[in-house]
């Protein structure tokens, strides 16, 4: 790993490792109950409650077979990201910008 890359969580999405661009990302012990949001974008799996807070739950890739929920955060708030499995904490894998995912969701919702 190159020196300028912090140790951030790497997860499997659509069968490929992706490095989450969020130093605070942490996997949850279990995927919480997810409430679908009808008429929501396809990337939005629904809403879930974590520590009393209502969070959006996002599909990170195109495959809908996630088994791990990762708690992530950005200036748009916290969210859960559904992915295949946790690979580790350091890698040269392609980065995944959590904030960009949430920003895209926000734009989709607002039309």
């Amino acid at each position, binding site marked *: 790993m190159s020196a300028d890359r912090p140790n951030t969580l790497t997860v499997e999405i659509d069968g490929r490792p992706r490095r989450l661009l969020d130093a605070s990302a942490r996997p949850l012990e279990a995927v919480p109950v997810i409430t679908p949001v*009808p008429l929501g974008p396809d990337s939005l799996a629904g809403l879930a*409650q974590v520590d009393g*807070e209502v969070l959006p739950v996002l599909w990170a890739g195109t495959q809908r077979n996630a088994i791990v929920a990762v708690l992530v955060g950005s200036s748009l708030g916290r969210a859960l990201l559904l992915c295949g499995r946790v690979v580790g904490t350091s890698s040269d894998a392609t980065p995944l910008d959590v904030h960009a995912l949430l920003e895209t969701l926000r734009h989709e919702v607002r039309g």
Partner: protein
Amino acid sequence: MSATDRGLLEIFLDEARALLPRIGERDRSAAGELAELASVVGDAELVELATALRVGLERGHDPAPLVRLVDGKLAAIAAPTPLPSTWDPVELAEMRSLFLVEARNALVAIEASLLVLAVDPNAQEPFEMLLRKAHTLKGSAGSVDLHALSAAAHRLEDLLGPARHRRDASIIAAAQAAVPELRRLVGLDAANVEEELLTTPDSQSLDALRVDELLDAASELVLDRTRIERRLRSVEELAVDASPQLRAQLAELSADVATLARTTRRLGERLRRVRAIDFQTLVSRVEAVVRSAALREHKQVHLVARGVAEEIDQRLADALLEPLLHALRNAVVHGVELPIDRLAAGKPAAATITLALRQTGDGLELEVSDDGAGVDLAAVRRALVVAERLTDEEAAQLSDRALLATLFQPGISTRVVTDDLAGRGVGLDAVADAIARLGGDVSLYTTWGVGTRLTIHVPVESRVLEALLFKVGDQVFAVPSARVEEVAEVDKDSIDDDVAHIRIGDEQLALVRLGALLRIPRPPGLGGKRAAIVLDSRGQRFAVTCDRLIGPRDIVVRRLPRALVGARPWAGATISGAGKVQLIFDVDALAQLGAGKLPRPSYPTGPRRVLVVDEARSLREAVALVLEHAGLSAERAPDGWEALERLSDRPFDLLVFRHEQKGLSGPRLVDRIRASPHLRKLPIVMLTDLDERSALKLVGPFVQAIVSLPLRRRPLLDAVQRALKP
């Protein structure tokens, strides 16, 4: 202003004043000369006035009123000293005390932004914050006659404005040097109220903090009570055969829980009232600002307030004050026309700005509307090009809606001349930014020549709300009880499938089938009865159908996550006793979506839905499985009658049915579908034992594809693909 500038200005003023007597004598060429002079000094407003004079003279109008306006404008240019105060002393003291709270907050934000910029001069977010706060300070100080402070903030803004896209440390250092003067002026200009300012807000905020803590505790109490109620219901179900003594104890416990529910509700209501003010109080804060801005702009404005008796949380009112002032100043400066232009357009000389507050069940809707000229979209296009955001071609291609959205971006203004009220494009973006921080949303609507409406929606967090809970499919939803007019159990025969109406009693109501709207599959085992909930949206009654009523509950409203603010038709969410998230409807958005007045969200919403109909279970299952493996969502129906019922209850993208079946046969089913306004465009694939040519003769023109049996995978998928093609 330099000495040279001042000298040129005086020459201009002398020449302009010399023209006024000639204009008064209806000399059109003098009005033309005035317009040219004004354009030389770059005063767009004076150019407009002079042009209006020339046109008016050509049409034979009396020039005297406009000459008076020009005279006043020249006087203002000649002496950029404060206009005489428009306040009475008591009013001014009150307004200044309110302003100085705002000013102190703005200074904190300015200093914090400068600290960041000192390290990284090119950090954009703090720079935009700095510019916005300087702009706010300038406008607000001018509105309450603190002209020295307004001028100092104006100078800061002048310094920062050109550095919006490129700057170095020297700009930031110069801005830092301006801060002590701002601080001094806040104190100097407000000496009489300074002490009050420095003490009152702190004590207020401490009180507010305590009430917040109590409100949070009351909300948690409601959650605890909900859990107890849920467990009590489970115990009651288990205790059906228990001893009479135990059942009597349970009945008493149930009564105690009901009493607890009333007490917690009363507690929550009383605590909220402690922190509530009526909307009129907020209106009173802004009235004078509108008056002052109108005077400066030489415009006549009536401010009309609606919903003044509505209550609003004190802290929310404080947070809304700044964006509201921006919105109102924008309405006066950009929205409302000069009296002469209004008269020429057949409008009254005085414009009306309406400020309206409405409780929406999930939060507040605040509307600032004016009957002015509307947004000049051509000017917005020009502003985007001038700001180098878009090329001419790109700006020309932008839709009206997208153009309006750009007004919420930093740095976009249609105003040619900047002054202490507007013109730097730090108005609507400041509104949008402040409202986003409250988790809210802003929308702008305009009609050229008719007016502009700015709608602010702010959710109210952690509020206990009485709501009606119900199920659609397996999912629980809530609507605020305050919006529920009636609940009825209706036979499905009273629902007219073709015209989306329902008859309840003697009344025919517009109907929204929630299952169909939300694309939620219908649960198995539903009989012929449906629950209909009659809701009120802005005085209009409409009905929604659901699959099962749960009943009224006290719920704690949680705002939607920031990334989902604006998602329709949702107002917020709540967490059930079991910890599940349940969505709360925004009743007005639901009414609009149901009536087709709001477009359905157009992003993909999952796999295409197919209804497979055949009496033979083996064929039905085989077809459904082939389709499901191909990524489609398949539902099954055993005959034509149930197919019709399902089709009217939920939307499908395709119908696959077997021609030969009992009950409603293939051709009759097709006839019914093609006769229904809702279903006539539904693509159909027909399975048949007949050869393709015979089948074509029977129903050929009315179906998209025919598949001969026995079933083979590839021909079926090809036919489905053909039928689903747009």
